[in-house]
């Protein structure tokens, strides 16, 4: 279940210790990513990979833009 979040809310979540996941290709991640974000390209985001995340903390996922 996803909740849409805007920039201000994401900043609050990050400050509060949320895990941040970039789902773009790894080259994009290497160029620039949000501070502390980890890279899990969308096509690799399986249940197994999701188990690597800490379920006790919020998770923020992001792509490049809304399109």
């Amino acid at each position: 279940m996803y909740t849409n979040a805007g920039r201000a809310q994401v900043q609050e979540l990050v400050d509060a210790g949320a895990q941040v996941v970039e789902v773009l290709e790894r080259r994009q991640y290497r160029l620039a990513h949000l501070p502390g974000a980890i890279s899990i390209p969308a096509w690799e985001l399986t249940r197994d990979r999701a188990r690597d995340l800490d379920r006790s903390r919020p998770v923020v996922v992001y792509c490049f833009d809304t399109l």
Partner: protein
Amino acid sequence: MYDYVDGKADWMAYGLPVEGDDGPFLGQQLVEVPTCAVSSTVADARRLLRSSGTGASAVVVVTGDGLAVGEVDLETLADRPDDAALLDVMDPVPTTVRPSVTVASLAEGGGGERLVTTSDGRLLGRATVEASIHHDDHDHQDTREERYEAEMTAVLQAVEERFGDREPTADELHAFLRERLVSEGRSVEDAERFLDQLDDAEAE
């Protein structure tokens, strides 16, 4: 689970910090710009420029929220009466760029001075970038060809990483390339124009 729907483009366009190999970005080399409120007069702007001590040759007119709505240079100020409203003499809607544009991309585009604003128009400052220098046409040509080959190799690798052995559809490839171009500092419109040109070239 939260979905930051506006994504990395929004984060970077707002001048927020990022980690990674890209950059430096215009947002990292800003200088302060003299600003005047929308209620200011020509005399206010002249006084500000004289006292700023920065050597600035223009003021930016901003709203109370810091939104840049216009710019007035010394030459314009010189011709106008003291009590003229800046709103009436300013160059409205100045050309701006986002802080997420790389210094290298602006240098390759000819360099120059740009006002830098967030995606919602809030003024951050001014960035000045020198144009890339090429020693002669031969070197220039070699550099361009080398850069083109390196870029094509990187694109092919990225496409393979994204789609694996599967052949992407034309729409998928278009969206992928568009996203890539925008992430490298092009505007969405410029990226679309570039891809249209590629399509036209392929059609010919």
